[in-house]
């Protein structure tokens, strides 16, 4: 890549600036040019393909899990009978679903694919600060994914994605391979985080001050901080688990003198902040989509930017709310509960601000905006149901039931994945140079929205009734709710399948995209669609905020101080 760059004559850019300059996709040809690329846009695209591929794999596991839960046929002396998978197989399926979705899909989804692609473009930079590190982090991601999926062929894992000890230190399944995979994936996450932090600090275009940054960049910044600070703890924890399993040093297993609850503290010290690694980028996406399509300044720019940072900081101090029933001290539980409520405030501020942004706007209801509204609806439910679980006494009843399953799916799937798919619709023209079909975009959004609610709202009821999670079969009284949920999951799957179809159609013969189809003011819209290899023809200079749209009526008295 470096040598390629040197081969380009110095005057080439000026000579071809009229639009004939090749874009990043066809600037170089051949598979080798992709495998050795350090172009953040190509890497973003490769991450995107990887993430979507793993999303399909994780989704198939989910549908198998839901199909099993259509219901055992109740008969026989013991009152119940397996019907599709044995308990062991079912346990491996839900473990793989969780591990793939968390570590290979949601964590890298927005930051690694869209973040890589758009962060330098939004900053007016030619690339991220460390392009070669970026390439390395991609290969580390693929290697980690390979280890994780390799474990399927060596007996798979049956511990759940949480790897709780001492089950994980004693089960005969291939925990070490899976844990090593997650360990390696952590490095990919750390390297991306470091790269983004440096890029945001050092590579902003002239005039692009911190308060002129698009909120997507702010969200990426907060996310990267957590990735860099929290991920090493997960790495150490998983390393300790692997050491315990392989050479029998007692750390977590009480038979060897260890403490199983210690593992939970370590694990959630990473994995709770990781929840914010997963949701903060989605917040950034929603800020962009709603604002651009409302043609207004965002309501409370500073409050939204600072609440991301506040969530990132307080998010480090709430891990114990996953352990209210674990026997941790009463005082610790009370402190964790209180801090959990504290983190709800900045989240509420964001939600109110997004809705208020639409007030007095001129709303363009394109498919990205449909997905953004679906996000608001689903994330509101996800966030509010968190109140039940943060409350000490109520959590005792709901802990480890389907209520928890429903809650985190509303946040992770209804929140992050809905925002991710919305972001794909929003930035697809820029990434591929093609428009997506608006009609089918809305049809898919409808199926995703309806299917999701059917699949997961029924699980709130299941959990309240007392149905425990991670059950391969269940008592007859839970069956009809499980069947409703499974039907919803099929509709959800259909919605995503429709999305896949019109995305492929767009790549083949979609309408050509203009440079700025949505009238955005941030820098990614000031270059070609798709962008040229070095992003901009000339060094961009920023003279305005990211949301100063021409429609804004400045003859009205401006209100609000931000």
């Amino acid at each position: 890549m470096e040598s390629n760059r040197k081969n380009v004559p110095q005057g080439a850019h000026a000579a071809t600036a009229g639009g004939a300059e090749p874009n990043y996709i066809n600037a170089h040809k051949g598979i080798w040019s992709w495998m050795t690329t350090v172009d953040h846009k190509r890497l973003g695209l490769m991450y995107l393909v990887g993430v979507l591929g793993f999303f399909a794999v994780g989704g198939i596991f989910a549908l198998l899990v839901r199909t099993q839960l259509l219901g055992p046929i109740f008969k026989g002396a013991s009152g119940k009978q397996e019907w599709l998978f044995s308990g062991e197989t079912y346990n491996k399926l839900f473990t793989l679903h969780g591990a793939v979705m968390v570590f290979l899909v949601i964590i890298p989804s927005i930051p690694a694919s869209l973040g890589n692609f758009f962060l330098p473009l939004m900053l007016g930079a030619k690339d991220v600060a460390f392009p070669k590190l970026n390439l390395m982090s991609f290969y580390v991601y693929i290697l980690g994914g390979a280890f994780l999926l390799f474990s399927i062929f060596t007996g798979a894992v049956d511990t759940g994605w949480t790897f709780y000890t001492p089950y994980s230190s004693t089960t005969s399944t291939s925990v070490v391979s899976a844990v090593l995979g997650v360990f390696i994936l952590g490095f990919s996450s750390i390297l991306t985080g470091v790269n983004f932090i440096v890029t945001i600090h050092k590579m902003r275009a002239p005039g692009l001050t911190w308060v002129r940054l698009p909120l997507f960049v702010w969200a990426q910044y907060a996310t990267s901080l957590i990735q860099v600070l929290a991920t090493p703890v997960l790495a150490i924890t998983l390393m300790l688990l692997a050491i315990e399993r392989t050479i029998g040093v007692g750390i977590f297993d009480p038979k060897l003198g260890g403490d199983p609850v210690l593992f939970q503290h370590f694990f959630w010290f990473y994995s709770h902040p990781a929840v914010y690694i997963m949701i903060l980028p989605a917040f950034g996406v929603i800020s962009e989509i709603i604002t651009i399509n409302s043609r207004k300044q965002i309501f409370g720019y500073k409050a939204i930017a600072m609440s991301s940072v506040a969530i990132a900081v307080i998010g480090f101090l709430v891990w114990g709310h996953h352990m209210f029933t674990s026997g941790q001290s009463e005082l610790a539980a009370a402190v964790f509960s209180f801090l959990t409520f504290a983190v709800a405030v900045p989240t509420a501020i964001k939600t109110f601000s997004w809705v208020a942004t639409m007030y007095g706007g001129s709303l363009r209801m394109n498919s990205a905006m449909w997905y953004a509204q679906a996000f608001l609806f689903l994330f509101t439910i996800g966030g509010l149901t968190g109140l039940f679980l943060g409350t000490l006494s109520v959590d005792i009843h709901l802990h480890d039931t389907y209520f928890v399953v429903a809650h985190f799916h509303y946040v992770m799937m209804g929140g992050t994945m809905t925002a991710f798919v919305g972001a794909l619709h929003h930035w697809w023209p820029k990434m591929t140079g093609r428009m997506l079909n608006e009609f089918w975009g809305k049809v898919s959004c409808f199926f995703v929205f309806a299917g999701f609610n059917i699949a997961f709202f029924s699980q709130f009821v299941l959990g309240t009734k007392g149905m425990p999670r991670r059950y391969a079969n269940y008592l007859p009284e839970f069956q009809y709710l499980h069947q409703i949920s499974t039907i919803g999951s099929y509709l959800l799957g259909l919605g995503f399948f429709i999305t896949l179809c019109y995305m492929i159609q767009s790549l083949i013969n979609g309408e050509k995209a203009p440079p700025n189809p949505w009238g955005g003011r941030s820098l990614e819209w000031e270059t070609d669609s798709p962008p040229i290899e070095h992003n901009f023809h000339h060094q961009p200079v920023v003279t305005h905020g990211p949301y100063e749209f021409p429609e804004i009526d400045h003859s009205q008295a401006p209100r609000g101080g931000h």
Partner: protein
Amino acid sequence: MNLGSALGNMMAQAANTASWWKPMQASSHAVAVDTLFNFIMYLCFFFFVLIVGAMVYFIVKYRRKGSGPERTSPIKGNHTLEIVWSVIPGILLVLIFAWGFKDWLAIAVVPANAMEVRVSGQKWNWTFTYPKDGIVSPDLVVPAGQTVKLVMTSTDVLHSFYIPDYRIKRDVIPGKYTVLWFKPEEEATHQIFCTEYCGAEHSNMLSKVKVMSSAKYEEWIANGGEEAGGAGVPLAEKGKKLWEQRGCVACHSIDGSKKVGPTWKGAFGTARQFADGSSLPAADENYMRESILVPNAKVVAGYPGVMPSYQGQLNDKQIEALIEFMKSLK
């Protein structure tokens, strides 16, 4: 009858049955937890309607109509509004926290006059030991009106002891004791679940709470942990009941199908081939007894040696009943 007691009766009635979305309320914890649950739910309804209502209203009202550019408001924020929507939710959140904490302390602190029962969790069944009477039982049998304290531990991995009707749950941890308490009010049967994932038969790690009248409970204790009328029951039938209750069913089929462990159908009296190469021409009473108490002494070839020992959890009468049941499975 005044309104208060009428209302009280209604609530008591509602508490005795499960609704379509909540388990029955069988303890004071259950009433407290449900009251707060409902309070949070109404708050959530309010905020949900506020947020989604505003969202839908704005979509309808401010949707772009023509094709030309429309003017939009220059509004960038509003300090008063932002303070209001930070402070009011903040106050409500502190209220919910304090309320939840108060109720939770009541669950955490065990009253002084409690009757103690030891709970042992192991893959994949529960064992209840009554220390005063030396009784070991697969069900949690308690007298109505008596406060019960559970002292729980696990012999292998993490489990979690959950009774939805009482709204109580606590992890059961190897190498450590955890405590739960409840006060059953009425004679009834309640479901017990394991809610901490523990492996292949996690979803079959079930048991029951049986709340009896004091008289019946005394009789149960006097019978050594068997319900009245057990005298005339054939030993094999008792064995079948134990097979279901003590978790044998999770790993051993009685119809010849292969599960985690070997089937019991036709097992008694037939040849056994072991993993270490040795063999037995015909499985007899001594072999069966050893397999229950020291399971890993002889592991049948082709099966993992994962069965936990039942030493101290089954008495001689129960082991005899189980062997008698195996004999009956031809």
